[in-house]
């Protein structure tokens, strides 16, 4: 059984933002919301590192456990989705998720409603919903340096291990 996962290879990410653009275009994600974002650590300093962060489609999702409305569910192939018709918009999943994956329309006004939660769907569902498509995440497909690995957990971890071994063979020190 395939279990879909993401694996960011932080040594390769150059923060071009291609993943964010590809995601927004593919899924019609509105302004102010990002299903994936690149976070830079130690910007301008030694050890600068870019980390593409999206929903990790956790094996034991904290958001799923926290959701009081049972709006979040996990497919057999490991993809975690939200049923927007069931979501109340309480925002508790956003507190429970360690990766900041659940997104809400956070406004500044007193009456700016959050709306329902949106998150990375592994490109099986666009922002507005509809019929589920095949899991082919565009963020990984469009990644220029192939820093974002997506696919079956066993396959991508094997690819990552291979890369790490090659880097060690070349004498590269991670983070340098």
């Amino acid at each position, binding site marked *: 059984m395939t279990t879909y996962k993401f694996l960011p290879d932080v040594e390769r990410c150059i923060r071009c933002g291609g993943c964010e653009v590809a995601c927004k275009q593919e899924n019609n994600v509105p302004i102010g919301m990002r299903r994936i974002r690149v976070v830079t650590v130690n910007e301008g300093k030694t050890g600068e590192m870019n980390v593409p962060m999206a929903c990790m489609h956790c094996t034991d999702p904290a958001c799923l456990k926290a959701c009081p409305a049972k709006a979040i569910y996990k497919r057999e192939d490991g993809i975690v989705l939200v049923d927007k018709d069931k979501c109340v918009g309480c925002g508790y999943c956003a507190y429970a998720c*360690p990766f900041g994956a659940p997104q809400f329309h956070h406004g500044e006004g007193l009456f700016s409603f959050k709306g*329902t939660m949106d998150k990375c769907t592994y490109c099986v569902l666009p922002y507005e919903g509809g019929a589920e498509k095949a899991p082919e995440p565009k963020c990984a497909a469009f990644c220029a340096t192939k820093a974002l690995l997506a696919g079956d957990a066993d396959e991508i971890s094997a690819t990552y291990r291979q890369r790490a071994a090659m880097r060690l063979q070349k004498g590269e020190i991670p983070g340098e």
Partner: protein
Amino acid sequence: MSHIWYVLTYVFNQLAVGALIALVMAEYLVKDKKTLGSYEIASYIPIPAAIIGVIAICIPVLPQILNAYRLIFNITSSRMSMEVIVTVLFIVLALVYTLLWVCHPEYGSLRKKVGKIDEIADMIGYKNRLQIGTMAAVMGVALLFISGFNYVLPSQPVWNHYTTPLFFMVPALTLGPAAMATALSIKYKKAAKKEQTEYKKLLGTYLGFAWKLVLGATIVLIILQLLYLQFLQSPSAGIAGLMTVEQILDGEHTTLFLLRVATSMVIALVLLAGVAISLKAEAISRAATLSIGLFIVLFVGELLGRTLFFEACVHFYEVAPHLLL
């Protein structure tokens, strides 16, 4: 600003629970029926406060309000579901308890005034009031505990500490008795000023009791604040804790933190000292005025405290990539 409705909900819940606890405690301590009847005014606090809390929490989810019934669907694993259920139970019990006060045949101010509520109250039985009040108080404590425990999450290292639920529970013991003291002060201050010994004694007794309770809770709150600041700088809170403490002590939330300390702790203690001195000098009217001021200060302080709780928190996902280094 995005957390304003949550802040209002929690503060009004604290007020509702605290006022109910104060009233139940008074009922346990006061044996004289006539004196007890004078406390009826305080029974008007819990339900309106709880309803304001419910309205406030409904506002951010208004577009999906028809789906709100779904909030109780995940009681097995979601603390939010438990919170919703306990809130409903608290409100129902507090409503029954209030009804038994305001419809009481001897001193109920709504007796024979509003429709058939007297009949409902008579049916429940006034002898059961204390038991119902105790159950409501227990449910209220559970509500505040779950509200705080909601935020004790591994994904939020800054909140993942035992002080978080305590920060939701302890202020109820400052707000509640102070609110009850305010209600009594507003009602009986004039009478006490006119040297009416009966009211003077009543106010003096209650203010003396509330004073000690609020002082104790304020001291606990100060200790909790110190323990929390210490925790933020510990390895368990990690980078998120260090960033939060920096924001609180020397960053964008310093003003908010100082205002919180000034209101809930410093000014509160000064006013408590004023109440104590006035009570000792038997200046009941002055003590009553100071008690009203104390409630306002504590209420504003708690609004600031809850705002700080949400605004100053550095979430795990903001610092998670640092852990890769």
